[in-house]
């Protein structure tokens, strides 16, 4: 009964909002509709409307999926200090962060869905009803852990919010095991996504043990950066008074993860280029172009530039300035998105296993659909954040 009221209040909260809120949601809805119409076209004509080919058979969809999994996993960088080390400052913002994790999870699943050639056969993926190639296929693992993680995160955040709603302290014995589980599954979603790539012997660019650590490191910098960005926005728009100390904590986390990530990237680049073997052709294509084809070169160099400038801002006292901090976060999010998406998924296919250099550029429809997914994800995040803030500020509570 109480729970139903909680849900009811939550839904009511969604429809309460100022001009800013509604215009934000309106813009997102329009973008989402655009995306939906483009997706309809893709459904009707097939994936031929995308820029993908047999040579480069995954494009911007899987690229976005990969980086979003990272953002989803990053929530644990807040959960760990909040619930393992009982850091009160982080605890305040952990539920919006979980909202981000949920939204990112949903988005990444949507990206997989829109990438399918036969979305109508999705049910083949269901265990027992369909045929799930479970222990063998890394993609099957990924589907599984993503769902588990989504489920866990949802349970945890609903439980925590509900307790707060009732005005009670959440029971340690209930949430602690769940939190521990979710920490592991957060790690595993990103590790498994890395394995999804690194298990491919066919693609030497992905076939490296460093991929999983790199994924984790980049996720733990870009995820919190994304969240910090939204926290800064929340603070700026005065919807939620994020404390300075929480921001500082986040900055520390981001800086360390970013340093590790750049170090790992450096190690990778060194190994690829010291003896330029046949296997480093993809890296050569990515950084310098191959056979006069250079489509990805601007991408990766801008990513390098963005990452390094983010690092510079984070290590300098410059970060005390909110504008610079926001800028650094933005740089980082975009930089990592490119590094892990266009800079990892696409060059893995170029050159093909038969040495052909065939380039990939996303088509307009592809971009439109991706933006649509982002819009839906952001709407979801806004809603979740709004509810959690409302509960946190005790705007809605059991009376």
């Amino acid at each position: 009964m109480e729970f139903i009221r909680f849900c009811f209040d939550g839904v009511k909260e969604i429809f309460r909002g100022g001009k800013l809120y509604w215009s934000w949601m309106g813009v997102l809805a329009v973008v989402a509709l655009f995306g939906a119409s483009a997706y309809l076209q893709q459904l009707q004509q097939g994936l031929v409307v995308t820029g993908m080919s047999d040579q480069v058979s995954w494009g911007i969809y899987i690229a976005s999926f990969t980086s979003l999994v990272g953002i989803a996993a990053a929530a644990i960088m807040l959960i760990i200090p909040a619930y393992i080390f009982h850091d009160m400052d982080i605890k305040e913002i952990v539920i919006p962060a979980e909202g981000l994790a949920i939204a990112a999870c949903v988005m990444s699943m949507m990206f997989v869905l829109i990438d399918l050639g036969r979305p109508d056969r999705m049910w083949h993926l269901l265990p027992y009803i369909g045929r799930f190639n479970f222990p063998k296929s890394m993609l099957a693992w990924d589907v599984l852990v993503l769902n588990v993680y989504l489920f866990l995160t949802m349970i945890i955040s609903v439980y925590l919010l509900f307790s707060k709603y009732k005005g009670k302290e959440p029971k340690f014995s209930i949430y602690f095991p769940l939190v521990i589980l979710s920490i592991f599954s957060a790690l595993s979603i990103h590790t498994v996504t890395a394995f999804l790539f690194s298990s491919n012997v066919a693609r030497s660019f992905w076939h490296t043990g460093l991929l999983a650590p790199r994924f984790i490191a980049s996720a733990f910098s870009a995820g919190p950066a994304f969240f910090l960005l939204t926290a800064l926005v929340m603070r700026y728009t005065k919807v939620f008074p994020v404390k300075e100390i929480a921001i500082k904590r986040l900055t520390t986390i981001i800086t360390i993860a970013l340093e590790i990530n750049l170090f790992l990237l450096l190690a990778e680049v060194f190994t690829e280029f010291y003896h330029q073997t046949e296997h480093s052709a993809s890296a050569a294509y990515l950084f310098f172009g191959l056979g006069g084809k250079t489509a990805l070169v601007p991408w990766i160099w801008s990513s390098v530039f963005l990452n390094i400038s983010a690092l510079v801002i984070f290590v300098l006292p410059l970060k005390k300035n909110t504008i610079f901090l926001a800028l650094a976060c933005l740089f980082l999010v975009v930089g990592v998105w490119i590094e892990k998406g266009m800079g990892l998924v696409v060059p893995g296919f170029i050159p093909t296993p038969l040495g052909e250099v065939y380039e990939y550029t996303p088509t307009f429809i592809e971009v439109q659909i991706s933006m649509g997914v982002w819009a839906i994800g952001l709407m979801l995040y806004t809603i979740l954040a709004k509810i959690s803030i409302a509960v946190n500020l005790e705007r809605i509570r059991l009376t």
Partner: protein
Amino acid sequence: MSEKNNPAKTVETPENSDVSRRELFKKTAIAGTIAAAGAVSTTIAASNVESGGLSDALDEFFQKHYQEMSKEEMQKAIARLERKAKEKHGKEIHIGNTPPLEGVLFGYALNISKCKGYRKCVDACVAENNQNRDTTIQYIRVLELENESMNFEEADHYYDRETVPHTGKKYFPIQCQQCENPPCVTACPVEATWKEADGITVIDYNWCIGCRYCAAACPYWARKFNWSEPSIPEEKINPETHYLSNRPRMRGVMEKCTFCLQRTRKGKLPACLEACPTGARVFGNILDPKSEIRYVLENKKVFRLKEELNTEPKFWYYSD
């Protein structure tokens, strides 16, 4: 569309009336899932508007995995697929279902010193296997390499000369290597692709969800995707097909070379071999010690591509 969202309707169709209780539960569960995902049903609707009745559409939607179908289900599925193929392509098409032969493991050998790069095999393959002519799917790629190099990155895939062979070049046809440890099979999340008893990796085109993970996993770039709805001029359709190989495909699924399963399981030679004007290709049963292929493997200087990847290809290259 709305009918499809209704699970009750599903089980009432006459085709499904004889299914067991478990089946019924299964289907209801699935239908429920669909109802939840509105976009999904849109797809079915979109893909079935052109092609006939609702019951066909439902049957196709619920068609089971090739390996799980019973004999009658198989017959029904094949009859429906043949009917639909006729509707679509305007030609009577026979979909066979010959099982693998006992004690046969297919192997292929190619003499690279004989191959002259004419690309006759490429076009014979397309004619035999009903590939989509719009997106021009080809299972065989012939690479032109420097005589003294084996670096594929320096290969020319698109050589277009007056005459071949060109001096100082060698030609290297590559198709599915029918790996004994196929990475594509381990990759597939729904087991839509598997290795048959005669060593041929096949795809159930009605089960593949089109995720293209197998294409990323294949080290030989053998898997080709149907980016658009396949279209083949009616007179170019090969009506003799097999469920697992050259039957008409649909958009959004993977396909690949099957060593012409429809021919080789009946004892015939693959189309690429028949078309090769230089006799560079040798095909046969590698379990038969008297076979030609075994002679080649045992007596020639033979090598395989990317053996270091532990894929155990059943496609060998040799030279005189």
